[in-house]
């Protein structure tokens, strides 16, 4: 097997036994990128020189014996939303111009301190706004399973890079499904942790009450290792929470006997692709054979989630994106006075979806409409959160499809924003309630496209989600299938 195809935990074991070097693996991954990225366009920027330098340092460390941090020498990709010192960071937007950050965000700092080798920055929907990575200002990323289809979004570049072995693991962000939905579309594991589990410092802000950083990996064990590396309280993010970070990877083997698994009836509805529904139900039956107790639960306000989300997320975005004014960094359009500078800079710098969301959010917050839209949405958000509180009194985890369909065709939904928004229908509530949710592969449809199932847990109970996901993964082979490239 080629080095690039290794999982993180396989690679870490080989590195620590000195069977291979980090430089060899890093070269192997860059070779894979060179051979495949002209077709896939997962990456916006590569850091070949600094990566090889980091790999050499990792090899020195490994050679000297002693304690090495857990990701020492492991090549990792970062979504281009992460502020990364001395590496161009665009958020897939023209408005950031030639911005080169003078610091590392906390997740990047922690992943580096864990010893990881940074390969480069992956493509995404501009400002993480989208479900297909078609909203990148630079390039459209393609799904490694079928290059006529989208990889999902907004972390589509990270998802396709993991699926195509163009990295060992990746980091993404998730505001309404942006880790889980592309993970499902590309047949990988993706976890959105509890709101507050991972610091948002140095993550370019989209909707601050919803945004969360998380791992995108080849299997569940890798996901646990990556989460351990980035989780924890950070004084630079006052919304990060001081809850101890368990050793997730060492708690995977507990089995699922006696756990109660909730099946929300509102998530198995007409309109979802038959093969998706069947695969998820088969997965639930398999877990039942392994000892979980299946209970029906109800999340009656689910039907309002998309409407609530697109008011709250756009309202927060319109406020967050006010900072792109062409004054201190990024692009500035030539104009005759201050107001015209603002207006032209933002006209030329933002793409159509970002403008649409800024308009929607500004409208929802503007005088006379605040109560009807923003306040109303916040109240229904309370009802959605209460639904989950009630459901979790009856069960330990909830299982749903991650997406209503497998990956759609490039261009299929770009003309109808509302249809695009509805592809996040099963992931959005989790962000509104601040819960952790993981997607993992649970089958393939007739076109050979991966299907994802979502496991939702209680606040800060990522360990149970990972345990269920691991038990399922051990009983199946889906995660071992690779796209032909």
């Amino acid at each position, binding site marked *: 097997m080629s080095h690039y195809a290794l999982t993180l935990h396989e690679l870490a074991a080989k590195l620590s036994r000195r069977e291979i070097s980090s430089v060899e693996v890093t070269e192997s991954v860059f070779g894979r990128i060179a051979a495949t990225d002209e077709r896939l366009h997962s990456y916006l920027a590569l850091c070949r020189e600094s990566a090889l330098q980091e790999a050499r340092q990792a090899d020195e460390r490994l050679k000297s014996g002693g304690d090495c941090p857990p990701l020492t020498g492991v090549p990792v990709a970062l979504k281009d939303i992460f502020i990364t010192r001395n590496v161009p960071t665009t958020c897939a937007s023209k408005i950031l111009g030639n911005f*080169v950050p003078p610091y590392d965000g906390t997740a990047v700092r922690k992943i580096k301190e864990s010893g990881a080798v940074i390969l480069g920055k992956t493509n995404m929907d501009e400002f993480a706004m989208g479900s297909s990575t078609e909203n990148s200002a630079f390039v459209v990323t393609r799904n490694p399973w079928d290059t006529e289809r989208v990889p999902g979004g907004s972390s589509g570049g990270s998802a396709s890079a993991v699926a195509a072995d163009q990295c060992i693991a990746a980091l993404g962000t998730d505001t309404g499904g942006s880790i889980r939905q592309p993970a499902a579309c590309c047949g990988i594991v993706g976890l959105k942790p509890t709101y507050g589990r991972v610091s948002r410092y140095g993550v370019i802000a989209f909707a601050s009450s919803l945004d969360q950083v998380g791992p995108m990996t080849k299997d569940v064990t890798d996901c646990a290792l990556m989460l351990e590396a980035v989780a924890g309280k950070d004084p630079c993010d*006052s919304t990060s929470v001081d809850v101890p970070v368990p050793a997730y990877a060492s708690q995977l083997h507990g089995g699922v006997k006696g756990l109660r698994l909730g099946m929300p009836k509102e998530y198995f509805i007409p309109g979802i692709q038959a093969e998706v529904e069947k695969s998820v139900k088969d997965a639930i039956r398999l877990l039942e054979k392994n000892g979980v107790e299946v209970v029906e639960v109800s999340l009656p*306000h689910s039907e309002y989630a*998309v409407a609530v989300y697109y008011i709250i997320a756009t309202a927060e975005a319109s406020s967050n994106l006010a900072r792109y004014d062409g004054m201190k960094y990024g692009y500035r359009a030539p104009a005759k006075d*201050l107001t015209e500078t603002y207006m032209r800079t933002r006209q030329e710098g933002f793409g159509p979806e970002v*403008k649409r969301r800024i*308009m929607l959010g500004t409208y929802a917050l503007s005088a006379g409409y605040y109560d009807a839209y923003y306040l109303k949405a916040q*109240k229904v958000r309370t009802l959605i959160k209460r639904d989950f509180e009630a459901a979790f009194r009856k069960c330990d985890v909830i299982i749903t499809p991650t997406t209503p369909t497998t990956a759609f065709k490039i261009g299929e939904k770009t003309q109808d924003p509302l249809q695009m928004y509805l592809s996040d229908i099963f992931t959005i509530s989790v962000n509104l309630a601040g819960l952790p949710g993981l997607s993992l592969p649970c089958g393939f449809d007739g076109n050979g496209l991966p299907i994802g199932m979502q496991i939702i847990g209680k606040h800060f109970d990522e360990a149970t989600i990972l345990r269920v996901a691991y038990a399922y993964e051990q009983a199946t082979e889906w995660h071992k299938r690779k796209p032909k490239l």
Partner: protein
Amino acid sequence: MKITREEVRRVALLARLQLTPEEEELLTGQLDAILSYMETLDRPDTEKVEPLAHAVDLVNAFREDRVVHEPQAEELLANAPAKENSFFKVPKIIE
């Protein structure tokens, strides 16, 4: 009709977004469709429901007031669209 072209212009000015006439027309239709969809929120009874701003309970976070290393002025200015000496250069604000 939830939204008119006039209103799209008003909101665009609030958001400091210059729109072309084509963008104005497209956005009027699209925002109208999206805002009509939002009407589903009129259905649930929320009269006695408190609004939720954050899903995880937050308390005010205090920190010690001490000096930490931040990026230096030259590093920050390196990203400026226009600068003069150690200052950001911006369009004139007062005539």
